[in-house]
Structure formats: structure tokens, C-alpha cells
């Protein structure tokens, strides 16, 4: 194994943090995205408004600023909340925000907005006739969603999800700024200590490229699968 002046193992640990962070925030983002898409398609004015406000605000502000706001502000906000709880109900709790959890929540929140836009378009692309047919078969709304709307929607959503995933992966690098020890932070620390930027930054860049290349391949496979029955898969283009 390459030693990298003793930083090799730490760099690998950092890479694991990056991957875990990216995958967990992707899951959170997909859940939030589905909720947002439903909210934006809702006929209820208030719910629709909340969904629109969320996507507009998040997409109008840099990721780093939101991250700093949630990370630095989050602890103070929670402390204020627990203080209130203490004064009002005499409940004494202390919640310490873990940097990793904060990172997952922030990135999940940011990309939930982008996923919401992707899913909204995909939901609308599913023909209503398909859902009517599902209802005519007596499927419950949940079953109809799982068996009909979701698989049909994924065909339209996959290119967008793929793009969002690639951007999300690169955004995880920002958590190094707010103090999470991902591979970028390890590389930055090593660079400052040894004055050898190329030795540490280039391997990290290559790991990002490797993950991106592998996921591109994975998404191509998925696209093929969800396009079954729709002829040649033509929608995926990078």
C-alpha cells in the first residue's frame, strides 16, 4: 500500500467518511425530495407554498452558507430550545450536535430541494391512465404508488437523480470546511504539514473520479432496467 508519508490510512478513513456521508445524505435527499414533490403537486395552497418556498430558498443560496448556518447556528438554536424546555417544563436535556449528523442533515436538506424538482417533473410525466388502471384493479393508494407510479416515474427521474448524485458527491467536500474529517480535510491538513499539495490532493481527486465513474456505470445499468419495455434507452446522456 502507498504510504503517503504516513497519511495513507487516514486518507482511506477519510474516503470512507466521504462515501458514508454521500450515501446517507442521498437517502435523506430522496425521501425529502419525494415529500417535496408531493407537496408541490398538492392542491392545498399552504402545502404547495411551503414546498415552493423550500426549493426556492435552498436553490438560491450557496451550499456552503447553508451548511455554516445550520452547523454553527444549529447548536445555538438547539441550546435555546432546550433552555426554553428547562425554564418552561423543568426538563433538563443537553443535545450535542455531532458533526457527521449535521453534515448528513445539511446535505440531505440541500439536495432534497433539487430532488424535489426532479421528482415533480417525473411524477407529472406518468400518464394518468396508468394510475386510473391501478385504481380500477382495486389497489390501495400505497400499493398503486409502489407498483405503478414509482417504477414508471423512475424512468423519467433517473437522469436527474444521477446528475444530483454527482453534484452531491462533490458537495460533500465542503464538510471539510466546517470541521468534519473527510478525505479532503485529511489531504488539506497533510498539505499544510508537509507542503506537498500534489502528493495528497491528486489521490483524493482520483478517488472522486473513481466514485463518479463507478456510479455513472451503475446508473447506466439502472436506466437500462427501468427502460425495459420502452425500447432503446435513449434518455441517459451525461
Amino acid at each position, binding site marked *: 500500500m502507498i504510504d503517503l508519508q504516513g497519511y495513507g490510512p487516514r486518507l482511506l478513513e477519510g474516503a470512507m467518511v466521504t462515501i458514508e456521508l454521500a450515501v446517507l445524505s442521498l437517502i435523506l435527499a430522496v425521501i425529502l425530495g419525494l415529500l417535496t414533490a408531493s407537496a408541490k403537486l398538492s392542491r392545498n395552497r399552504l402545502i404547495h407554498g411551503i414546498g415552493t418556498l423550500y426549493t426556492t430558498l435552498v436553490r438560491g443560496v450557496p451550499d456552503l452558507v447553508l451548511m455554516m448556518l445550520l452547523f454553527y447556528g444549529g447548536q445555538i438554536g438547539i441550546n435555546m430550545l432546550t433552555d426554553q424546555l428547562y425554564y418552561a417544563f423543568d426538563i433538563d436535556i443537553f443535545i450535542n450536535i455531532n458533526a457527521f449528523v449535521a453534515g448528513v442533515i445539511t446535505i440531505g436538506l440541500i439536495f432534497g430541494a433539487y430532488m424535489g424538482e426532479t421528482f415533480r417533473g417525473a411524477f407529472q410525466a406518468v400518464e394518468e391512465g396508468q394510475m386510473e388502471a391501478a385504481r380500477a384493479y382495486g389497489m390501495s393508494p400505497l400499493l398503486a404508488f409502489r407498483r405503478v407510479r414509482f417504477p414508471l416515474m423512475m424512468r423519467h427521474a433517473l437522469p436527474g437523480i444521477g446528475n444530483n448524485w454527482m453534484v452531491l458527491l462533490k458537495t460533500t467536500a465542503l464538510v471539510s470546511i466546517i470541521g468534519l474529517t473527510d478525505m479532503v480535510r485529511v489531504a488539506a491538513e497533510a498539505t499544510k504539514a508537509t507542503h506537498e499539495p500534489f502528493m495528497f490532493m491528486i489521490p483524493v481527486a482520483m478517488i*472522486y473520479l473513481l466514485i463518479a465513474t463507478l456510479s455513472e456505470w451503475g446508473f447506466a445499468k439502472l436506466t437500462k432496467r427501468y427502460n425495459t419495455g420502452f425500447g432503446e434507452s435513449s434518455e441517459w446522456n451525461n
Partner: protein
Amino acid sequence: MEQLNGWFTDLLSDNMIFTANTLSFYWGGLVTTVQLVFLSLVIGMILAVPLAIGRGSKRRWIKLPIYAYTYVFRGTPLLIQLYLVYYGVVFFEGIQDSIFWVVFKQAFFPALIAFTLNTAAYTTEIFHGAIKNTAKGEIEAARAYGMSRKLMMRRIILPSAFRRALPAYGNEVIFMLHASAVASVVTIMDLTGAAYYVYARFYAPFDAFIFVALIYLCLTFGIMFVFRKLEKRLLAHLRPRGA
């Protein structure tokens, strides 16, 4: 109105944070951010046009290096690219003795280089996509007029490709504005840097970051507005009639 006035006075009366001093910090940050983003976008676009044409070339030795460049720069985080240029610039033989060192000593220029290379890669792909999607009929018509490849590129393909690239390029401009926030990491006092300073000085994350978020939001809306106007003008021929 009276009530609103009173509310504002109350709100601002015990405001310790937004003094003339901190506001001037934010203003300086705004100027730096706009300069950085604008310059990198302009230089990036100038680089991207020939690169996009080369990217669509039939010759492999032109096409492949450009593809490799865009692949690497689009596949890695901007933060890494920034670190590489910022810490790597001193490794150029003799740069510290040359006249350029006055310029490269500051963080602004390494950041400008990193941002330019990054946006040029994205813009190349956007333009390349638009050039590739030129309608066959337009090219055939140009050929029928006996235009040379060069003339055809200049008069037919590029103007129509730029128009089609406009919506995607608008997104890239906004993306670049947001991505420029990482400049604060290498000691540049851009908008985010100013906000961080105010946060650290007063320990007031909500005031500092929400205020800067609002500035970014205004800038984003401004860019969106300009591009929507441009699209309306330049893509008027693509809209359905009577709309």
C-alpha cells in the same frame, strides 16, 4: 404603517451587529465575489468556445485531451481544484522571483485560475452539447450556399448553438456564484468570508449567515431575471405562435 415603523425602530434599536463597519465588510465581500465570478465566467467562456469546437472534432488527438480535461474538472470538487492551485502555485520554478509574484502572492489570482478552469470545463460541455444538437437542415442549407466550414461555424452553427445553450448557461452562472463561496476558505474576503468574520466576531450565526444568504438570494434572482429576459429576446423564434 405607524405600527410597522415602530416595529422596525424596535428591531434596529438594540442591533449591535449591523453597524456601518460590518456593513462595509459585507460590501467589500460583495465586490470581491462579483469580481471573482464575473472575471472567471468571462475568461472561462472565451476558453470554452474553441474547446467546445475541438471537443466535437473528428480527430482523436484533439477530441480526447479536451474530453479528459472536462471529465477531470467536472468530476472532482472545486474545493480540491482550488487547494491544488492555491498550494501548488509556488511549485512553478522561479515564480517567487518573477514579477508575477506580486499578483500570485494574493489568494485572489489562484482562486481566479481555479474558478476559470472549472467553469471553462462545464461551459465547454454545455456548448458542445448545443453544437451537437444543431438541426441538420441548417447545416445542409449552409452547405448548399457553398459556405466553407469556417464560415458555416461562424455564421450558422455558433449563433444558433449559443441561443440553445442559454438556459443551461444561465444555470452555470448561478452555479458558479454559489460555488464561489469556497473562496473564503483560502483567506479571500468574499461575501461568505465576510459573513464568517461577522459570525466569529459577534458569535451571531443567524444574523451573519441569514443576512448573507439574502444577498446571495437577491443576486441569484437578479441573474435569473436577466437570463429570462435574454431568453425571451433570443429564443423568440422558438416559441409557439401567439404565445
